[in-house]
């Protein structure tokens, strides 16, 4: 038996690099790492330009883990990567935190379960993704925020191209993922903002019901980015869960 001291946090689309918002506050509890995904301005961009599935990213991050158990977390697109990792190697993880994850299609063919982040204007993403759009920060999209240099917007376009490479069709989900969710016998916390309109709380709640050991928590007054919009509430929900699941070894 030991204790998991690292958390791998997989970032969402459009979010600035690094441990922003509540992620910096979790640093008291665990060593949090927020790697930039290949294609999104990472050192691996050139070497990985042929990668075209979230399975590639999951394989990459799994390969990079050394033997220890870690806490795995992901938000939105990063939540999808985390789920792909969890179904492949559930025993590598002491806990799993999913923030409004993409990746699993739950309802009918004409139900739009994920907002079209690759079509919408940045202002629309903010409208759908924030309970209080005026409070937005921490996001970078083409032309957003206003007044940045060309290089920043070029990176934002490159991020969008990378997301399209991984997630264009089927859009933001992998039809093969749902059939393996039952193997994720990892303590899991699904965290959502109750005002998220990028992926609805109903979607995340239903997904939590398909994961064997998942709790579901809704944070009031937050949208798709509760770790940015309501960082204190986010830490209050996540820190006790992580602390309670830090003893490792049982699964190894």
């Amino acid at each position, binding site marked *: 038996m030991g204790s998991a001291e690292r958390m791998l946090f997989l970032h969402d689309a459009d979010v600035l690099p690094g441990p922003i918002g509540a992620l910096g506050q979790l640093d008291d509890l665990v060593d949090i790492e927020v790697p930039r995904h290949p294609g999104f301005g990472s050192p691996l961009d050139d070497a990985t330009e042929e990668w075209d599935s979230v399975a590639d990213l999951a394989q990459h991050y799994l390969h990079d883990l050394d033997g220890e158990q870690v806490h795995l977390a992901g938000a939105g697109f990063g939540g999808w990567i985390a789920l792909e990792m969890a179904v492949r190697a559930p025993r590598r993880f002491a806990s799993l935190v999913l923030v409004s994850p993409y990746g699993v299609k739950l309802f009918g063919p004409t139900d739009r379960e994920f907002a*079209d982040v*690759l*079509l*919408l*204007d*940045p202002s*629309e993403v903010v409208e759908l993704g924030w309970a209080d759009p005026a409070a937005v920060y921490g996001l970078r*999209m*083409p*032309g957003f925020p206003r007044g940045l240099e*060309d290089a920043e*917007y*070029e*990176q934002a*376009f*490159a991020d*969008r*191209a990378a*997301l*399209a*490479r991984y997630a*264009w*069709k089927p859009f933001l989900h992998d039809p093969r993922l749902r059939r393996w969710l039952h193997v994720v016998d990892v303590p899991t916390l699904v965290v959502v903002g109750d005002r998220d309109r990028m992926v609805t709380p109903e979607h995340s709640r239903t997904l939590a019901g398909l994961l064997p050991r998942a709790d579901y928590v809704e944070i009031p007054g937050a949208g798709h980015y509760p770790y940015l919009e309501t960082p204190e509430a986010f830490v209050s929900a996540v820190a006790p869960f992580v602390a309670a699941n830090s003893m490792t070894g049982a699964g190894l």
Partner: protein
Amino acid sequence: MKCYHFTEMPYPYISQEVEDEHRGLKYFMPNRYYDPVRGYELYQRYLDEYELADELGFDLMVNEHHQSASTLHVSATLSAASVLARTRKGRVLVLGTPLPHRESPVRVAEEVAYLDAISAGRINCGFVRGVQGETYPSNQNPVHNMDMFFEAHDLIKEAWTRQDLFSWEGRFYHYRYVSVWPRPYQQPHPPIWVSGTTSKLVEWTARQGYTLCNLLGAYDDTARSFRLYRKAAIEAGLGEPAPDKFAYLAFCHVAPTEEQARRVGEKLMYYLKQGRQRLGAASPPGYSSTAAAVAALRGKLGEVRKYSFERLIDEGIMLVGTPDTVTKQIQRLYDETGVGNLILMNHAGEMTSNEVRDSLCLFSREVMPAVAPIGRDWRDDDTSWRVDNDTQPVETVLASALS
């Protein structure tokens, strides 16, 4: 100079309110606004106009767009089949099939071969990437658009010319057995035309020896992309390309007086109306370089859409006026760019059929004979675009044009 008649076959009955609500006429327009009876009447009218144009000596062009009130052509090959059945003489330019948006290149090879076979080789076969917004109706990944275009082309050409059963296991397309019937009537295959301004695509088109088409570009941009083509063709050992390797699409309306031509011709502006497209429709992820995407974001692309009617006439993008005026405009277009094929958008929006027919007849009677000899003896013409005369540097085009 060869002259093609073209209409996008618009459905012009959408109110401004509805257009504004849906951010333009294209790609995301609910089809409840389509009336089947009015649609039928429009199709008959547009096909009648193609038939008249053929009788008057025009060649003919068809295209396709999707989920759009500005275009009722849904498949360039289907439209070509309809136009072929109505006409006898003119060449039918299919410009074009958006290769990355079609699921099956083999099916494209079959359809174009069929068109060529039934018409004893009246087909010019255009291949295009598909404009940005087409990404959404087809849902094909824009990141791979250019690479899919090249692979689909290679597969189609193989299907036309291999003359044996073959397998294709490429990056995007997978077939274990390919041997399309019929083969094209024109051997080894119909002339291929490509439209675009991206350097990589222009240079590739030149190396293949295909005809390059510029749609509604400002003359200096058009000349720039043709210059790039000429340089690449010469570097590939193909010699200096003749004007027939270049095509330009312009608006056109002729009338007996300048005043009348301008009054009616202004209706052609309909085509340039730009909806407030969403970011992802204007710049689909990965469709262009990040530098081009940022230039688009900063409003540096597609500037033709912002030109006034008068400026469009001055720039020669609107060929509007009396037959004499338009003949001079076409001469100037040739002098500045060296183009040998002119695609005339003789109709847009709410122009009536009579307005279109009157212009077609007058153009046929007075302009066509005057411009037909232009470019025939291009090696003797003293023009700025001839490779030996052209001292301008070769530059990338950051497109005033619309595709």
